[in-house]
């Protein structure tokens, strides 16, 4: 949910970096989105296309790299990759539920490709 307002933030940042680097067109936007972020990738491109019309980022292709959800066990220190967002968060080694989420909540703009 809230993909539209998030994509507005993305557009603002992309245009800022584009202008700052004297770009004329933005061709590609490379995002890294965590599995726990709750963002639906299909809507990311769709909303971006809607709001970027008329800007230098119009028609830019959005490339999404997914960042896996990982937890770190506070008991034994092992890291576990979480397969599904709503399964139990427990350590794969010692089964403890005292865990800390160390990745998976990100929504990063990694880079943009411009001319």
């Amino acid at each position, binding site marked *: *949910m*809230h993909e539209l307002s*998030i994509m507005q*933030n*993305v557009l603002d*940042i*992309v245009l800022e*970096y*584009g202008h700052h*680097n004297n*770009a004329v067109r933005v*061709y590609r936007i490379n995002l890294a989105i965590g599995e726990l*972020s*709750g963002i639906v990738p299909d809507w990311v491109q769709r909303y971006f296309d809607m709001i970027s019309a008329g800007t230098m980022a119009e028609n830019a292709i959005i490339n999404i790299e997914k960042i896996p959800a990982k937890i770190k066990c506070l008991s034994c220190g092992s890291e576990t990759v979480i397969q599904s*967002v*709503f399964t*139990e968060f427990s350590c794969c080694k010692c089964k403890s*539920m005292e865990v800390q989420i160390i990745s998976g*909540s*990100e*929504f*990063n*703009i*990694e*880079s*943009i*490709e*411009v*001319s």
Partner: protein
Amino acid sequence: MDGVRIIQVKENILADNDKEAEKLREHLRRQHTFLLNLMSSPGSGKTTLILRTIEQLRNEFEIGVMEADIDSTVDAEKITAVGIPAVQLCTGGLCHLDSAMTAEGLKSMDAENLDLIIIENVGNLVCPAEFDTGAVKSAMILSLPEGDDKPLKYPLMFSKCAALLLNKIDYMGIADFDSEAVKKRVYSLNPSINIFEVCAKTGEGVEAWTNWLRNEIKNWIQP
């Protein structure tokens, strides 16, 4: 394509709210104030539960309430009518509170001198779960008439809360509601959640909830 350059950006769009929420929690810890975020669908009984909670804890703690609705002051008026300070945030269409809005709301309260502040979040089972308000703990209400499939349909909120109140237990036998199925579904999402069966209207079962909350508050303000 000729002349295409790659510009490194490395900005995290979602980082802001989480950072602000952590800062707010640290501030509340130093100030010895426990902030509780209460969420649910509209009409589940948040305001009634808050009134019952106030009734049972007001002699031990200084309490304030932050009300959040799209519009109207209906809820804040119910709180101030019992002599407890309340601020009403009218979001004008925004479906949830985030930590910036919470921090802003706290400025209108004498938060320093309050032990417990309850946020009554916007009635909504979806969006409030996605935004850390800076609260110490989150709790939610599921009322019996809403149905026992809600943990399956809206898992995020159930997975983020420290406490779940199954409210309107006076509907048992009238509403189609399998309590055991709900508990099973919720524990599989969130094994450490505390579940309380209550009727906020009559007060039945509320003491177990306020006992838990009292303990949480004490652990926070006097570690």
